[in-house]
């Protein structure tokens, strides 16, 4: 199964070992990540599933997979410059969504159908905490779509091309990313 297909369908029945391998391949972080150690493969999997639901891939347009939204988010969360409160918030939100799914459907979020996911996320949105978490996840998806590829999303400017957006010059080199200056 291709990584893209896997992430699109957030497939079922995989062992946690293979899940971990695939998620790690997706995030392939170049930053040491002590702050994200508490995120289990299951956490990454549910976050990926939500990203893919709120920003789906289509034939002609990039979705969360193509813009490397999971890798981008991982880089952000693993960055020592990131406010630990934000890391904690994203982690706790993914756990709450898992519990919410299991309470309402008795199965993990990642095993729900697309329609069931939509319904569940809309219900999750009615909770203030859930809404804030979904806005946050969407925010980092949009960053992954439209910030400079040097940050790990928007590979080869795929998001810019889709929206006919012109990036400004000079663009940030890797040694002058925002936390390095």
């Amino acid at each position, binding site marked *: 199964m291709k990584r893209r297909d896997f992430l699109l369908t957030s497939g079922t029945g995989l062992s946690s070992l293979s899940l971990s391998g695939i998620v790690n391949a997706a995030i392939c972080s170049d930053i040491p990540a002590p702050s994200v150690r508490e995120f289990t493969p299951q956490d990454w999997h549910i976050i990926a599933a939500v990203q893919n639901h709120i920003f789906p891939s289509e034939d002609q347009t990039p979705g969360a997979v193509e813009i490397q939204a999971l890798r981008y988010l991982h880089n952000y969360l693993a960055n020592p410059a990131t406010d630990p409160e934000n890391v904690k918030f994203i982690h706790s939100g993914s756990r709450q969504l898992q519990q919410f799914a299991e309470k309402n459907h008795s199965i993990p979020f990642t095993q729900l159908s697309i329609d069931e996911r*939509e319904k569940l996320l809309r219900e999750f949105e009615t909770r203030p905490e859930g809404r804030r978490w979904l806005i946050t996840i969407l925010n980092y998806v949009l960053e992954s779509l*439209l*910030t400079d590829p040097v940050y790990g999303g928007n590979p080869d400017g795929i998001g810019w091309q889709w929206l006919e*957006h012109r990036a400004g010059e000079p*663009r940030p080199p890797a040694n002058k*990313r925002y936390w390095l200056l």
Partner: protein
Amino acid sequence: MSYDFDICVVGSGAGAGPIIYTLAHAGYKVLVLEKGPWYTEQDYFKDELKTSLRGGYTPDLREQQHVVELENDDGSWRSFPTYQSSWNFWNGNVVGGSSNFMSGFFHRLKPNDFHLLSSYGPIERANIVDWPISYNNMEPYYDKVEKVVGVSGRVIDHPFQEPRSSKDFPFPPTTEHPLAEHIDWACERLGIHTIPMPRAILSQPAMNRKACVYSGYCGSYGCATGAKGSSRAALIDSAMATGNVDLRPHAMVTHIHSDPQGKVCAVEYVDKEDKKHTADARLYVVAAQAIETSRLLLNSTGSKHPDGLGNNSGQVGKNLIFAGGGAGSGRLTYDKFSEQQVTELKEFGTFVNRSVQDWYEITDKDMFKSDAPQKGGTIDFVHLHPNPVARASRQTRSNGQILWGKPLKDRLKAHFTGGRYLKVEAFCDWLPTDNSHVSLDHQVKDKWGLPVAKIKVDVHVQNLKVGWYLANKSADIMREMGADNVLAFASGVPPTNLVAGGCRFGTDPEKSVLNPDCQVHDVENLYVTDGSFIPTGGSVPHTWTIYANAFRVADKLLERLGGQKKQV
């Protein structure tokens, strides 16, 4: 008595640069203490994360924040710290200060702005005064800014054109986007004068600086060519070349010490490693931007200044102002224009550069319930800011729900590719009142243990009336252009990047902090040269006036120090 330096300057932005530049070129030893890092053209990139989303040029709010006090609908007041709120009053703590990140819309004040009280009379609940100097006193320095900082533009005749000693700007206008023509055509049909917006951006290389390369990312972004007239690019780099300036970045001034006579005797600052230092000088200048200047003075108590330096009349921090006004936007939808026009409208990088000042003074009995002319303002037309994440984020709500999935993607596609957006920024006086001020918050401290500034924000209803008037006029122009989705409104939210006042200048020490030369009334060796001195703000962004006034004060300081030193 010997001093470490002739002059010590706290801050390095638009209020500091002219002092540093003038005195260094005159041969005096200048110490500059800037709390932020020292970036050059090689460090500025078109990086939305660094610039706008991660606060890359401002302090971490966990370590340094403010407290804001706002009025509730029932007239009571609430206050909250800015960390974990959407408020941020920092504007660029780097060498050159926030002038690095300005858009450089440069307008002079008009003669009437210098005597607002005499010209338009009092307004209830507003602390309107006349300035202690006139436009004629400032004009030579506006002129100097055009030439030294570099202002591009073209003078045209219009009803509120202020008097000028130079016939035209020293640099031609920056290259204009085809949108400018659409504005001109609409205004011509409506009988409105348009002005090529003067900008502190070099349209051609000069003064060892490159010309603008039209990257499309100007406001909020540091300039990678040096074309933008930041205090650093235009003034400090040149001052450094004299060898007379000791510029210390990462130097946070924590206290200004005064002696038993009340004179400043030293400044205390901490470096990047939080190590404490002191320095002294014959004269001292504070230019840390309005809010932080008031805070530093209030924190700098001494035996003769028990309530803060220069605060024996309780005036430090009072009459804080912002820029009042409104905003608007409209979209020229591509399917309403010819193929040729669409190609032109899609051009990227050049400036809109159009302003309207026909309503700098307004007579409208319906709106203001008076036949008397009212002070109005300026309308500036600009591009919608190109920051793509910010633009995309604004598309994510629909009927109270978060928009996601295919509907979000469709909306993003339509927003980014379906038309050209035009934005309006309207400027009017933000009237000073008793309820707009800076004080110290003794509960919330910064990482050095110092009380942070508490900013009380009061919006006078007159700001909103004038703001609405200008916003409605701008909407008429956009509709005449054929724009869709026209939206225009007055804003009561203080623009945190357009702040002034707090140490107003005047002749009465009981009602002002500074004398007409911007020297603190009861501290004979201390001056304040940022926007703090401004008693009423005019209907334009403050930056050109801050630059001009700092050049004016620099001449006073130079005279006091003994004039130009002979070259050895």
